[in-house]
């Protein structure tokens, strides 16, 4: 089956720093979403981005479907950005999540 790999697995940032999270997938997919799981366990939609680039405030994402990867950019990080960032791909009716990148932003 399709493999979804995220890197880095863990990331520690100083508040105000920028970061790039990566998601690689092993085969063609119907769509790709980025989620933020906050420290309370809630899964929050960030982007639905099967291809191209989108921006929402300090966050932006780019998916290059032909090269099977997606990037999530976080600029001017804040302590509230802490949590786990997951990418998830849809293959048919099945959604496959990556293992996530655990981000901790220090004040």
């Amino acid at each position, binding site marked *: 089956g399709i493999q979804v790999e995220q890197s880095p697995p863990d990331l520690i940032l100083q508040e105000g720093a920028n970061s790039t999270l990566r998601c690689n997938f092993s085969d063609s997919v119907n769509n790709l979403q980025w989620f933020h799981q906050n420290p309370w366990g809630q899964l929050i*939609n960030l982007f639905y981005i099967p291809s191209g680039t989108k921006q929402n405030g300090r966050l932006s994402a780019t998916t290059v479907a032909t090269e099977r990867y997606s990037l999530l950019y976080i600029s001017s990080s804040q302590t509230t950005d802490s949590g786990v960032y997951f990418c998830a791909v*849809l293959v048919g009716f099945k959604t496959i999540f990556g293992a996530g990148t655990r981000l901790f932003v220090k004040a």
Partner: protein
Amino acid sequence: EPEVTQTPSHQVTQMGQEVILRCVPISNHLYFYWYRQILGQKVEFLVSFYNNEISEKSEIFDDQFSVERPDGSNFTLKIRSTKLEDSAMYFCASRSGGSETQYFGPGTRLLVL
């Protein structure tokens, strides 16, 4: 803004007992999903549901699991005879027919003793 809701937020049960987890998807959504997340691990797909039938299920979704949409608003996951390894957070999600974006509920944390 409409949101997916789940009840209960927490449930503790004894091994071998049946549990029913409830979800109310967003009202005009047509596709429904259940996922689970064992503590500290990634989110795992269990099942997708459309037009009153299962669209796809994972290898985790064995005979002890079932899903139902008993009325126009609720979507339930039943675990017939719980095992210790069923302890996890269970998320429900839904999406509309015109969008691929899935919206997740807050989850039910299930603890099997």
